[in-house]
Structure formats: C-alpha cells, structure tokens
C-alpha cells in the first residue's frame, strides 16, 4: 500500500491556546545552542522503537555486506547430502536442496540494494524536478506539476509490470522503473520549499546585488527541507523493498540464479503443500526490515515535531492532585 500516506497529515500542528509552558528563560543563553542535528538525534535516541529499528536495520545491512563470509553455502549450491531441515542447514534447504539461510543472506543484498538505490535516486530526481519547478514557476511549474498529477493518477503497479514484462526482467530495469514511479512526493516537497524561499527578502536582496540566488536557495533549501526529505526517503526505502518483493514474486523482478526475498516467496508458494515453513522466513525478513525502516522514519519525524500533546487521564490527574497537596 502507499507508504508516504502517513507522512502527510500528521505534520501540521496547531497549538490550541497560547502555550503557557514555553521554555523561555529570562537570562541570556550562555552556551551556543546545540545544532539541529544534535537536537534531533537526542530526541531520536530516546525513542525505543526508532532505536530498535536502527539497530535491526544495521544488523541486516551488515549481514548483507558480509553475506559471502557469513553464508555457510553458496546461495545457488545444491546440497543433496543433508536431509531436509537437518544437518548443517540452519533453516533447512529448499526443494532443490539449496541452503535457505544462505539464500536469505544473499537476498538481503538485492532487496536492500534496490531499497536504498531507489530511495536515493528518487530523492535526487525529485529534488531536481522540484527545484526547477519551484524556482522557475510559471509554465515550467505547471507542466511539471501536471505531469506529477498524471503520474499519481495512473496505477503505478500496472506500469511497473508492463515495463518489466515488455523490456525484460532485470534488476537494473526494475530499479529504473521504481525510481521513475516514486520521485513525485519528493518533488512536491522540494517545490513547496522552493516556493516559500523564493519569496523571502534575502533572496530578493541577493538577486538585486547580482549574487546567484541558486546558491542561496540551495543552501537554505538544504537547511529547511533536509529533514522532511530524509523522512520521506526513509519511508521510500521501505516502499521500494516492498515493490521489489512484489515484482519478484510475480516473476518480473530478480531472476535465478540471483535471489531476493520476493523471489524466494514466489518459489515457496509453489511448494506450499509440502514445505509450508519455506514461505515464512523471506516474508518475515521483509516485514522486519520494512518495519525497522518505518520506525526510523517515524522516529525522525517525531523528533522534528515540536508538538507534544498528551491528554490527561483521570488516574494521572489524581496523582497530580496528590502530589500538589503534599
């Protein structure tokens, strides 16, 4: 399902009344305030879900990088020696006698590669389109944004399937088509930021004295939009991993002898009757990785959101009253 949906609405915050507990001290600040990265990291690191996500994702990334050293067998090696599920096979072997654990490790490489590449490329393309659209405005903006509208109104899964079915199923093609169908949200975000920045006084001033406003805008853009873009990109990694698995499951993505979690699932479905456990591991891997990535993304977003709203429960209120009367 669409991943970026949860980022859109939760961002606006409207304080219901003038904040009475604003942390403003009357004394002049003695130290330099900590930078935005540090503040965000501080809040992020206090979020148990986000930190768990970060640790788990790191483990998967390391496992993917060191797969050749960690895997007890070659992923495509057929081992007819051990009986199914026994012997030296941690998670057993599949119908061809290939070691499932080794295959999971190698699959992580492709799934994560696709996830991160697609997210990174989408951010670059999206930022570029958004920047041009927001900077020039006018008819260029209109054309680009209409294009984004059209892209958003076609069923992208169909487009992915069509392209891969026609041009052939290759990982590189898959990455390209996934990038082509997922840069739009970043473009919207960056465009919005650009439109805001363009109107600011210092950009006008810079233009007036002949300084390239491109430079200024980019510097400020990076400062302004970097966090929302990071949140968006994080969630996009998860979305890309899911899309990769879906396409590979349909037989349109990763092809043998390469292996990915989605492709393993496609295999497993055929042998559902005889060996149902085979279908569990790859899916679990996808679930855990995407969950971790989403936790990280939400953690960053929460760390950025100044709104901290808690409703008062009766129990809590009783406690306060007790504390107060003491």
């Amino acid at each position: 399902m669409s991943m970026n949906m949860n980022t859109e609405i939760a961002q606006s915050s409207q304080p219901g009344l003038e904040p009475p507990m604003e942390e403003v001290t009357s004394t002049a600040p003695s130290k330099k305030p900590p930078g935005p990265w540090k503040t965000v990291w501080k809040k992020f690191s206090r979020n148990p879900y986000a930190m768990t996500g970060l640790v788990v994702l790191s483990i998967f990334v390391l496992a993917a990088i060191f797969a050749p050293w960690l895997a007890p067998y070659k992923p495509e090696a057929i081992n007819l020696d051990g009986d199914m599920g026994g012997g030296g096979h941690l998670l057993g072997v599949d119908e061809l006698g290939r070691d499932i654990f080794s295959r999971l490790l190698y699959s992580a490489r492709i799934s994560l590669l696709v996830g991160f590449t697609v997210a990174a490329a989408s951010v670059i393309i999206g930022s570029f389109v958004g920047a041009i659209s927001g900077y020039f405005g006018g008819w260029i903006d209109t054309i680009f944004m209409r294009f984004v509208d059209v892209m958003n109104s076609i069923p992208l899964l169909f487009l992915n399937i069509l392209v891969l079915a026609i041009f052939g199923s290759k990982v590189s093609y898959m990455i390209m088509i996934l990038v082509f169908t997922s840069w739009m949200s970043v473009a919207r975000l960056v465009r919005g930021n650009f439109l805001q920045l363009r109107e600011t006084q210092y950009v006008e001033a810079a233009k007036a004295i002949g300084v390239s406003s491109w430079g200024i805008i980019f510097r400020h853009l990076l400062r302004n939009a970097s966090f929302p873009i990071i949140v968006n990109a994080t969630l996009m990694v998860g979305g890309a991993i899911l899309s990769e698995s879906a396409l590979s499951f349909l037989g349109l993505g990763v092809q043998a002898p390469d292996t990915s979690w989605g492709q393993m699932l496609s295999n497993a479905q055929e042998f559902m009757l005889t060996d149902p456990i085979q279908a569990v591991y790859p899916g679990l891997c996808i679930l855990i990785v995407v969950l971790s990535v989403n936790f990280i993304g939400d953690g960053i977003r929460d760390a950025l959101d100044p709104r901290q709203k808690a409703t008062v429960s009766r129990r809590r209120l009783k406690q306060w009253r007790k504390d107060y009367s003491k």
Partner: protein
Amino acid sequence: MAERLLEIENLTTGFMTEKGFVKATDNISINIEKGKTLCLVGESGSGKSVTSLSIMRLIDYAGGAILDGKIKFQGEDLASKDQEDMRKIRGNKIAMIFQDPMSALNPVFTVGDQIAESIILHQNKSEAEAKKEAINLLRMVGIPAPEIRVKQYPHELSGGMCQRVVIAVALACNPELLIADEPTTALDVTVQAQILDLLQRLKEELGMSILLITHDMGVAAEMADRIAVMYAGAIVEEGTVEEIFSNPSHPYTVGLLQSIPGFEGTRGKELYTIKGTIPGLGNLPGGCRFNPRCPHVMDKCKSQEPLNFKVGDDHSAVCWLYEDKAPVEIGRNGGDTK
C-alpha cells in the same frame, strides 16, 4: 456593595508536558461583580487564557486540569462540577468569545445554524423560533441585512463581521457572564474600536458582567471597571481602573503602562520596554517571579515570595516595595474588604 457574580479562590491549574506537570496559574484569586467588567491584563503566556478556560472548564479538553481552588459562580463551585452539569452552564449562563473570529466559527455550518444551536440547546425552542431569534441577534450585534447573512457561511463574511457573529452566538442565551479572550486582537484597528463599543453597549443593555482578557492596557482603560494584572501565572496587582492608572504600584504594571505609546509621562521620551521575557512556568525564578526583570529588584525579592499589600483604598500589589503597608489576602481587597 454590589453582588459578586464570580469568585475565584486560589485557583491553581496546569498542563502535562514532557518534563512532567507544569503550573499555568498559581494560586490566583479574582472576583467579578454583577454588571461590571474585570480586565485581566498581561503578556501572552501569563496564564490569562488558561484562567478563562478554567472558568469554562474547557481546560479539561486542552490537556490541562484544575488542581486546586474554587470557582464560585452564583454560589456554586464550578471547579468541582462534572462536565455534564458544566455543559448546561456553558453557553447559557457563561458564554465565551475567542481571539480569532475566523477560526472560531465552524466553516461547514451557516451563521444562522451556529447561533440557533445554542438557543435550541439551552432554551428548548423549535428550530424555526431559534432561526428567528438568530436574525434578531444578528441585528442586535449590528449586522446589516441579517435575513441574508443568517444563511451565509463564515468564509463569506469579513473578520469584523465574524466577530459580531461570534458575539451573537455568545449572547444567544442572555448569559450572566461573558468571557472575552482577546476579542479584538485579530482585527483591524478601526474594527477593534467598533467591537469594543458594541461590547460596552451590550453590557449596559443586557446587564451582564464581562471578564475581558487582553494584553492591551489601552483596551483595559476603555472597558474595565476593575483591572487585575497577571504575570507568569499569578496576579501581581489588582484594583479599580482609576487606581491602577493613577497609581500603578507593581513595577510590572508600571512597565506595562510606560510601554503604551502616548501614555502620560511617556510622551516625548523613548518608549519603555520591559527587559527580558516572561519566564516559562516550568522554570520560575526563586522569590518574586518578576525579580529578573524588575528595575527595583532587592535582595529580598530573590529569596522570598512577596505578599499582597494594600496600596490604596481598593487596590493591592504583590511586591516587597510596599512592605510597610498592610498585607491582604490575594484577591480579597475588592469592594468590601474588612
């Protein structure tokens, strides 16, 4: 002496934050007489709005709570009422108008619907009667062609018009007390004066009391019978409007008055500003809460919280400068002080 409509005694309220519970008002006491206007004056963040929300018990919906104290309205304590009983009072005997009229009206209902709702709710009238009443109310608050306006949506009206509608909504059930929280802050200057005039006229016509919350001493001077000055969650000075303006006593009040352009004594001089900013209630300074910003700060101010001293007939200030005067209980000097 006039009958007291509302007496707030030692009200303490607060909010839950990340760092635990933070007080928003600290032990405040004020009262309002029947047919009179009390202005609660202070900077934003001083706890004025929280006080008004507490009277309405709307603070319960804003993530806060009343911790201690009484809010006596016509002899009943609102602080200990449950929400269902409060609901029958809200909009009926106590009504409220808010700062931003454009956002205070629901965009998906017509003006007439929103006025009629109160009438149907509290007065058991039929929808047709309520609609007729709504037109009368619109006429009363000075909206031309009320028969047409009543069918319009808020976005079709100007800010000043919207505030008139908000007032009409508030007056729908002839309240005894009208709480106006910065009713003119979001409006143009010319419209501001019109709205204030309207409130003054309606107060006299309907004989209601008003609790006017404002940061603007000018507005207070025009509207108030009494003034209570709030700073960082506490009342620091209280008295009749004449006393406060002729003999401002607390250094904070003095600062507020001196920062009004064109106020007596400031003409020709550089405009005064109170140095520093209002402290968060989570980290109040020790002693007097105003001491870091006070031009007359003494050693005592940094260690001991000041008492409330009687500085005039009907006038008191919470400040060590008046230590030689008789201490009074905060908020108890109004009218019939013993």
